[in-house]
């Protein structure tokens, strides 16, 4: 195990940074590099790609807004979920990032510092 090696302090941090950095750059470059070598992107690749943005964004967002609790009430009466719902409605009506953030943060603060305080 790498973790059992006597790598400590700053060296440990730099090893982590460099390896994560190389792996991440590899992920970023992967298909951008590959598609320069092939003429036509196969339909089997392009069709699923259409669903990548909504799927990844939803999988990133929802766990930050919803935590499953023992009861439905406890799950729903969560300041993050309420703020997320308000922000989602604003995003849908306006399609503006700034308005979405402002509505979400204002709702979060309202419930955290006033309603649930």
């Amino acid at each position: 195990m790498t973790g059992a090696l006597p790598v400590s302090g700053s060296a440990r941090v730099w090893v982590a940074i460099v390896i994560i950095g190389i792996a991440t750059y590899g992920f970023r470059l992967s298909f951008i590099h590959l598609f320069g070598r092939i003429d036509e992107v196969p339909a089997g690749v392009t069709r699923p790609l259409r669903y990548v943005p909504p799927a990844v964004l939803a999988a990133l967002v929802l766990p930050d807004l919803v935590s499953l609790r023992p009861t439905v009430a406890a799950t729903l009466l969560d300041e993050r979920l309420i703020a997320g719902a308000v922000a989602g409605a604003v995003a849908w009506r306006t399609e503006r990032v700034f308005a979405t953030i402002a509505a979400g943060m204002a709702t979060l603060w309202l419930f955290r510092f006033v309603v649930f305080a």
Partner: protein
Amino acid sequence: MDGDPTDDGLADGVPAEGDGTGSDLWAGVRDVSPLMLGIVPFALVAGIAAVDAGLGLAEAVGMSVIVFAGASQLAALELLGSNAPLAVVIGTAAVINLRMVMYSASIAPYFADYGRRLRAGLAYVLTDQAYALSIAEYEENPERSRWRYYLGAAASLWVVWQIGTVAGVVVGAGVPEAWGLTFAVPLVFLALLVPAMKDRPTTAAGVSAGAVAVVAAGLPLNLGLLVGAITGVAVGLATGAVVE
């Protein structure tokens, strides 16, 4: 083109695009600027978390420059701070960043005509936000210079990310945690998600991915994100096949 050993990736491979002025670059800078409201607190938190994990300024900035991927940086810092094995730190960060492969595949067709070096440089600054903005713009305004627009957005994010990290390290834990400024991060993703669900199959993809990610949030190594995303793509494909 790429098989040609004389291709230096610079002289050729950048077709004439846009109007050749800086307007496409500035369009990227302009479109990404509202997102900075979500990025600045995120970068500040990355700096604060680095201090919490015992990193110095050089290490914190080194991480933001070399990794340049916020969610994975925060996860790695948390694990480094709790003395997790290096393999776990690296593995977790890598899994979180696996989604970059999907972005790379999605945006690659738009960069296919460019030279090798330009593509290598564009890949370095690929992020959730630069990807989402660019893909949307390419569909709406096909006449744009794709790499200039993308670079305007992506390089702006890079600069703000580095400055924000430094500010976070310097400020330390000065911002009260109760304010929950990091909540601005999911709000940014939400603002990008809603317009991405534009018809029945894409909506089905988003709803199913989100539901699975919530249920799978307890999985180790942040696998819930990947499992949710893969489920969403599968459901989107199935719904698309039925609708057609």
